[in-house]
């Protein structure tokens, strides 16, 4: 089979273009952007995204064609062999590109090498993700050119945004775990930089730090998971992990730190899965690390759309989908993933019900939708969970960008960051912003689960699989099979072992699926409610933004609601035109010029320019129709078929539909549709018909409940009181340790010794010449005394039984030897010959040598040396000690 590809599948250089273009844009805008001006920055930022998207599209189409060829070849082979079915790929189709060899280290078993390369890979999964990132990224870049037009840090914004795209692409396209981690940290960095983009406001900088720290906590899990993978699977690249994943079934025994006698045994896959899940909860804003995402709305709205809704926050999902084999090896880890997802979906939705800040509603909605995705992959519906990533990218990006247009329009009237995001001050905007209204309306229908819209197919698919899927241990069927055989043939070997193992394989309890389904349906109803509440408060009714006093404090406390947010006309004399708050959309230069009298109706809120309205509209179109890429109930499943090879193994081995669940597919759609109808219906009744009276009454009826929901169930306060306080306490303890032990004992004691010694020695360095001279004189005297005496030092060398004794020479020395052989010197001798004597000493013998030295002053000194020749000591190897080098 011939494939006419321009590039080789194992050297797919267009990946360099996809990755390189945003990196170049980031460099260019970051370094030269300020000097070259906004036009150059705008052109460069959008152009590199266009290049990247074009290369990604080309790669995707080529991959599609290549895979089509493979399938055709397999189909031909299968039909040739007389088998009709079986033209199904079991392995993902891959294009790879090796940038350079990065590093290589010994593998855990010591046998081979564990190579880590800067290698990039695009397959079915990363191909779709890559298209979403570059495509949605391109649209959001276009949108941002207008949205940020008046910001003085225009170049900085686009440098960060381009850098983010690059890091995100590294994350997606990296062919191994460490490279993914590089991208993972890269997007974290860009997220931090962009959340705190207007860092001169303390709250924004704090939000950036919060995001950064929450992600660092998750990274502990990521690193731990990576270590476990490297150790147990013996590889860190995707194919290697898949092939070595059997190693993850090994048991690990965990001992309690408090009581080492107590221990539990888990499989390595469970531990790896839970560790990686911690990392994913950080990046993808799940319980318990979701708290950073709502605060991240402090960043510019396009950033919220791109990073904190469409792309970066889904990378946790991508990781789980990518490592589907690892996760499905542990049904327990899968159940935890699903439970975390369902809990987050419900929890975040309840907070979203009562928020008044339009971006906060969308932020909690994002957290909630990410929960759905986790629910999907956690129940083994990897393709469906990933499909929700895909659809969510469109409708949530459209919603965020639309809300950005709304805020933009509001800001032109109110000139206050906080109030221009408050939905209580909006209303009736559909008259003024029809494009935005229709785009956001379509996206709302999609997210709320209107039948045939994209969110309906992805969300209901997830809910169905949450109910119907069951994840089993990969060896469970084998064990069951053996046990079955044993019933007929009890003499078979390994019967007992198989039964034992079968009992040890954990499987989620039967009630878990229906529970997750119910939680998901409730959350779906809440989603429909808060999304329609957002739409009705923003676009329907009367516009309330005519008479807003931007100087008056905005009451976020619901009990201050009695004080009117909309002022009486006469209060407007006090309108503070010198409002110094940082102007989100307009930068600094516009401050203080707004003097229109808000008491009289001024220019109405205006539709956004086409560069902003068009991207939203395009995204909305996708939000409506993207569902038909994977409409499971209608059996239109091109995306599911496309992704199948990635999850083929898992679908064959671990994930199964419960018995009889096929018939439940249609009935189980009913609760989802009902949830949509109930949620949107209540929102219509309360906010359009009832003009918001019922919610106010409910809030008054249960003030504590309302206040708690408004304050995000006090989770931030809980974290403050426990983790942050605990960290502070630890830091205080460490500070005490530092003050008293390190500074007190170590540093002060050392310095006291040094300074005491210095004080003594300083007395001698007094600068008085006489003292120095006295020192010289004393030293000279000492030398004189020392050398006035003769010194009889000897050194003995041995050669067999022959010993040589050598005296140290000295000026004017004379020597007299007595070797104990009766021939002692009678006279002193000098010269070379006088220095050395030789003597023979037999084994086990001792001899005495006497040396008399006389110096020029006539003083004498006598030195006696005993020379022994002991038996040779036994060598270490003779004693049987190990470790003699070269011994073995």
């Amino acid at each position, binding site marked *: 089979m011939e494939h006419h590809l321009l590039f080789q599948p194992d050297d797919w250089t267009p990946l360099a273009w996809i990755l390189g273009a945003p990196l170049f844009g980031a460099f260019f805008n970051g370094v030269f952007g300020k000097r070259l001006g906004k036009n150059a920055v705008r052109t460069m930022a959008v152009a590199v995204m266009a290049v990247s998207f074009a290369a990604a599209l080309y790669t995707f189409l080529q991959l599609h064609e290549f895979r089509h060829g493979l399938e055709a070849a397999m189909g031909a082979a299968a039909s040739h062999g007389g088998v009709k079915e079986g033209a199904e790929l079991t392995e993902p189709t891959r294009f790879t590109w090796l940038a350079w060899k990065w590093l290589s280290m010994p593998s855990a078993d010591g046998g081979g090498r564990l190579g880590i390369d800067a290698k990039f890979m695009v397959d079915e999964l990363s191909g779709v993700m890559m298209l979403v990132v570059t495509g949605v990224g391109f649209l959001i870049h276009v949108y941002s050119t207008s949205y940020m037009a008046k910001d003085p840090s225009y170049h900085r914004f686009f440098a960060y945004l381009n850098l983010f795209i690059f890091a995100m692409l590294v994350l997606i396209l990296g062919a191994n775990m460490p490279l993914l981690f590089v991208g993972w940290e890269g997007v974290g960095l860009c997220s931090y930089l962009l959340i705190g983009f207007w860092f001169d406001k303390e709250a924004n900088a704090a939000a950036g730090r919060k995001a950064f720290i929450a992600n660092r906590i998750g990274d502990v899990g990521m690193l731990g998971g990576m270590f476990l993978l490297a150790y147990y699977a013996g590889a860190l690249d995707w194919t290697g992990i898949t092939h070595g994943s059997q190693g993850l079934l090994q048991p690990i025994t965990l001992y309690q730190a408090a009581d080492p006698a107590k221990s539990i045994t888990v499989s390595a896959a469970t531990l790896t899965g839970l560790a990686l899940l911690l990392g994913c909860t950080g990046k993808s804003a799940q319980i318990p690390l979701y708290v950073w995402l709502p605060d991240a709305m402090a960043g510019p709205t396009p950033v919220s759309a791109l990073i904190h809704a469409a792309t970066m926050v889904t990378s946790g999902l991508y990781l789980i989908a990518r490592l589907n084999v690892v996760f499905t090896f542990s049904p327990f880890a899968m159940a935890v993933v699903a439970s975390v997802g369902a809990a987050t979906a419900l929890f975040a939705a309840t907070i979203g019900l009562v928020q008044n800040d339009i971006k906060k509603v969308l932020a909690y909605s994002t957290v909630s939708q990410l929960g759905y995705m986790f629910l999907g992959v956690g129940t083994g519906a990897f393709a469906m969970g990933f499909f929700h990533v895909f659809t969510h990218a469109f409708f949530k990006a459209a919603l965020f960008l639309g809300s950005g247009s709304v805020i933009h329009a509001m800001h032109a009237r109110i000139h206050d960051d906080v109030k221009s995001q408050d939905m209580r001050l909006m209303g009736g905007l559909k008259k003024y912003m029809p494009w935005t209204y229709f785009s956001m309306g379509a996206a709302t229908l999609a997210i709320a689960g209107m039948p045939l819209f994209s969110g309906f197919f992805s969300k209901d698919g997830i809910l169905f699989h949450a109910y119907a899927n069951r994840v089993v241990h990969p060896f469970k069927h084998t064990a069951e099979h053996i046990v079955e055989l044993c019933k007929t043939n009890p003499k078979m070997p390994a019967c007992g072992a198989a039964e034992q193992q079968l009992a040890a394989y954990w499987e989620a309890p039967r009630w878990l699926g229906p529970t997750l389904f119910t939680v998901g349906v409730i959350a779906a109803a809440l989603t429909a409610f808060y999304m329609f509440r957002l739409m009705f408060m923003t676009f329907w009714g009367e516009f309330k933004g005519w008479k807003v006093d931007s100087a008056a404090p905005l009451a976020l406390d619901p009990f201050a609601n009695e004080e009117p947010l909309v002022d009486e006309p006469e209060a407007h004399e006090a309108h503070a035109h010198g409002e110094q708050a940082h102007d989100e959309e307009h930068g600094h230069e516009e401050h203080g010029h707004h003097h229109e009298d808000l008491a009289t109706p001024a220019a109405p809120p205006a539709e956004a320019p086409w560069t902003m309205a068009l991207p939203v509209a395009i995204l909305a179109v996708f939000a409506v129709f993207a569902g038909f890429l994977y409409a499971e109930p209608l059996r239109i499943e091109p995306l599911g078929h496309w992704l199948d090879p990635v999850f083929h193994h898992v679908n064959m081995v671990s994930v199964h539909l419960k018995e009889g669940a096929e018939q439940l597919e249609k009935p189980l759609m009913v609760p989802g549709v009902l949830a949509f109808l109930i949620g949107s219906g209540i929102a219509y009744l309360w906010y359009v018909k009832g003009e918001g009276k019922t919610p106010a009454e409910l809030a008054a009826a249960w003030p504590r409940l309302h206040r708690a929901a408004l304050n995000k169930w006090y989770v931030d306060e809980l974290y403050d009181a426990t983790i942050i306080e605990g960290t502070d306490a630890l830091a205080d303890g460490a500070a005490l340790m530092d003050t008293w032990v390190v500074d007190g004992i170590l540093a002060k004691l050392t310095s006291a010794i040094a300074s005491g010694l210095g004080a003594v020695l300083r007395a001698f*360095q*007094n*600068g*008085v*010449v*006489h003292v120095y*001279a*006295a020192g010289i*004189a004393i030293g000279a005297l000492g030398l004189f005394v020392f050398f006035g005496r003769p010194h009889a030092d000897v050194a003995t060398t041995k050669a067999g039984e022959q010993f040589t004794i050598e005296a140290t020479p000295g000026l004017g020395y004379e020597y007299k030897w007595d070797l104990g052989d009766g021939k002692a010197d009678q006279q002193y001798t000098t010269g070379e010959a006088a220095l050395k004597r030789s003597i023979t000493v037999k084994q086990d013998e001792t001899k005495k040598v006497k040396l008399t030295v006389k110096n020029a002053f006539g003083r004498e000194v006598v030195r006696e040396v005993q020379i022994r020749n002991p038996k040779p000591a036994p060598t270490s190897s003779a004693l049987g000690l190990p470790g003699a080098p070269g011994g073995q």
Partner: protein
Amino acid sequence: MNAIPIPAFLVVAAILFGIGAVGFLVRRNVLVALMSIELMLNAVNVTFVAFNRLHADAHVGQLFAFFNIAVAAAEAAVGLAIVLSFFRLRRTVRSDAGDLLKN
């Protein structure tokens, strides 16, 4: 002719050196200290000349004595220059005033 024995010269030289050394150590006047140094140098010169008698042909000791005298002259010139600038600085020639490096 009865030559004076060499040890006699050595004893004189030792006495001279001792006077010089003690003088240098105990007197605070820089000029006196310089003179003490001259005394010690001259004691060495006497020793050189005395030992020269042992190797009379070579005249090495006498040559060394001449070099020493030249060095002493140079040392005196430098030393007096230092004393002059020291006096200008501190209006005294007492050596214990020369502790500017301290602190």
